[in-house]
Each structure stands twice: as structure tokens, then as C-alpha cells.
């Protein structure tokens, strides 16, 4: 089964869900947005969506920039 991921054609031997595809591609699921055939799929749906031949997937990474507030705490 061929699927387009960020414009590149990829071959998968078996039927995969969106969540399985992300795992297969080592995509960090907690910081990406996914579009399937020009429609954004919410995170809660990733395990339910089974990919079909010629599906087009776009993966966008959520980036923060310069620094991360690694830990923060309140109250003296």
C-alpha cells in the first residue's frame, strides 16, 4: 500500500492506522499536527483512522523556539 508522507511516496506491507504510521516513522506524536487528505485529524482519532491506498499525509512539527521553561514552579 502506497501512502504519500510529506510529498514522498512510502510503501507499507500491511494496513496501518495513523498512530501506527507515526510510530513506524518515529514521529514524536506529542508535538506534531497531522493532516490526512487535506483535513486535520485530531490526536484522539489517530488510533481509529486506518490509512488507505494513496492517502496523503502531512506532518507539521510544533516548535517553541529559543528556550523551554523546562520546569517551573509557583509560590514562595
Amino acid at each position, binding site marked *: 500500500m502506497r501512502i504519500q508522507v510529506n510529498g514522498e511516496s512510502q510503501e507499507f506491507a500491511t494496513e496501518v492506522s495513523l498512530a501506527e504510521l507515526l510510530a513506524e516513522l518515529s514521529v514524536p506524536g506529542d508535538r506534531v499536527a497531522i493532516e490526512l487528505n487535506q483535513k486535520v485529524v485530531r490526536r484522539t482519532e489517530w488510533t481509529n483512522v486506518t490509512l488507505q491506498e494513496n492517502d496523503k499525509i502531512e506532518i*507539521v512539527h510544533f*516548535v*517553541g523556539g529559543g*528556550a523551554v521553561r523546562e520546569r517551573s514552579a509557583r509560590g514562595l
Partner: protein
Amino acid sequence: MGRYSRQILFSGIGADGQNSLRDSRAVIIGCGALGTAQAEALARAGVGRLRIIDRDFVEDSNLQRQTMFTERDAAERLPKAIAAVNHIQQINSEISLEPEILDVNYTNIERLIRNCDVVLDGTDNFATRYLINDACVKHGINWIYGAAVGSYGVTMTIRPGETACLRCIFEEAPPAASAPTCDTAGVIMPIISIVAAVQVSEALKLLTGQFAQLHNSLMQFDVWRNEWRKIRPGGPVPDCSTCGLRDFKTLAATGNDFAAVLCGRNAVQISPTMPTAIDFHTLAERLSPAGEVKFNDYLLRFRAGEYELTVFQDARSIIRGTDQITTARSLYARYIGN
């Protein structure tokens, strides 16, 4: 209007558009790499009022990509908001500039975006973006997300009620320390230029009412891998906790202060929730027996052994030499007060 003649000739803006820009106020939150590029472009374009907010001061390591700053700004350790305003005054003296040296948080965000027409994101962290998203959705103000790490950048324009908001697409911030940052992955200037250019173009469209021209997407660019792609976030998600259910949880926080580790800098920032004006002369007198003290109009620097405390006028402090919040808090209490 001579200085704007080329922009007025551009059919997308014209004389009416130029007047709209003059009558607008844009807020830039975070004046680092993205923020300086945004500020300079908006100032040159003639946006009448620019509010430029930043919590930090200029350092040598900024100069590779934070285009408005100079070696002299770094040597003088000027707050970025002040250094930016100093340069912009020389670029366009006709516009009004509102520098704010502070850490944007739930106590001040709603005041800072009040009466503004657009907010541009120049921040360096996820937490502040969710804060901007909450405040802008709550008050119906358009804002433009933008971020860059390495050679990769993303941007999205959020129009509350019309488009998806940040939380519609990314329901939660990534877990702390899981995402790459400029401090761990570096960053090159060209990606900054691209993200800022798209953000500024979107701001010009919003401020001149050209909504049909907005890109309506979450755009991503990688100038090293040569990829320019976008997805279409669509309209607001009905059960989005922010724009659907209007639960602005980042604005409802409580507490006495914030302490935040500044990742990659071996520093902790302590921000009192109730800012108090600090008199640098008095503080310098008190601290000088304990270590070397220097100050300018905006900040005071105090060296105590292996630690260096930078204190701003509102009592906020960046404590360098530790990444431990408890150590930083005790240094703050010892030298600055509670």
C-alpha cells in the same frame, strides 16, 4: 507620504491601506530573533504604534540572528525592548513606540494586548504561546504564531471565531524538555527571516483588512532540507477548550511568584507576581559590601561568588550560575528580598 510611496503603489495596500497601518497598534511579544525582524519591518511599513515586550537583555550570542542589535547593545547589556526601540527611532521617528521590559504572564497579558489590533509571536517557549492564545481568543484579537529551531520554522495566523486557534491544532504543549530548542539544536538566521516575513505579511493583511489574502494554513519551512509545505487547519474546533468552551485556564492561574529555569543558560528567572519598583542606587549601596555591583537605567547586575544576579526595575531577577529553583529562590530572598 514620500517614505511610503513604494508601498502605496502596491495595489494590495494603497493610500487607504497606508492610513490603516498608521492608525494601528501592533504588539510584539518577545523581541529576540523573530521579534526584531518583525519590529523593524512593521516600523518601516509605518504601523503607527508598536508595543515591544521582552524580559531579557542583549548578549553576544544573540548577534548572529537578532538583526537589530549591535555589539554595543550587548556590551551595555541593554534590555532588548530598549535596544530595539533605540534602533527603531532612528529608522522611523514618525511612529510611537511602547517598550515594556517584563516577563509576560497571566498577571499582565490582558493589559498588554488591550487596544491593539494584532499580536505577533516572537516568544521562545510554549507556555507563553498558550497564554497569548487564551488572552487573544478571550478578547477577540488576531495573533500570529511563529517559531523556528534549526533550519525549520512554522507559522499560523489565528483569528478568534474565524479560524482554528492554537489549541484546536495542538491541544497541549509538548512535555517539558521533549522538544528541540535553539539552545539544544541551534538556529540559523535565514529561517528566522522567512518565518518573520510571513508573519509580517499576514499582519499587514490583517491591519489593512485584506482577510481574503491570508494564507489560512499552518505553514512549515525547512531551508536546509528545502521543504515548504502547509496544512489547512480549517475553522474553530467546536469542543476546543479555549475557543469552543472558552475555558481560559492559563489566565486563571494563582500564586505568589514564578520561578522558571532558563534552559541551556544555567539560569533561573524569579518573577514576583506583584511587581515593585526597585531603586537601583539604594540596592547597589546595600549590595556593594557583598560583591561587585553595576547598573544602568534598566537593570542592575550583582556578582556574588559563582552566582550573578540581574535585577530589573520591577524586581524580576535572572539568577545565573544555577539551574536549581530552590537555590535561586534563596539567593533572591537573601539579596533582593521577598
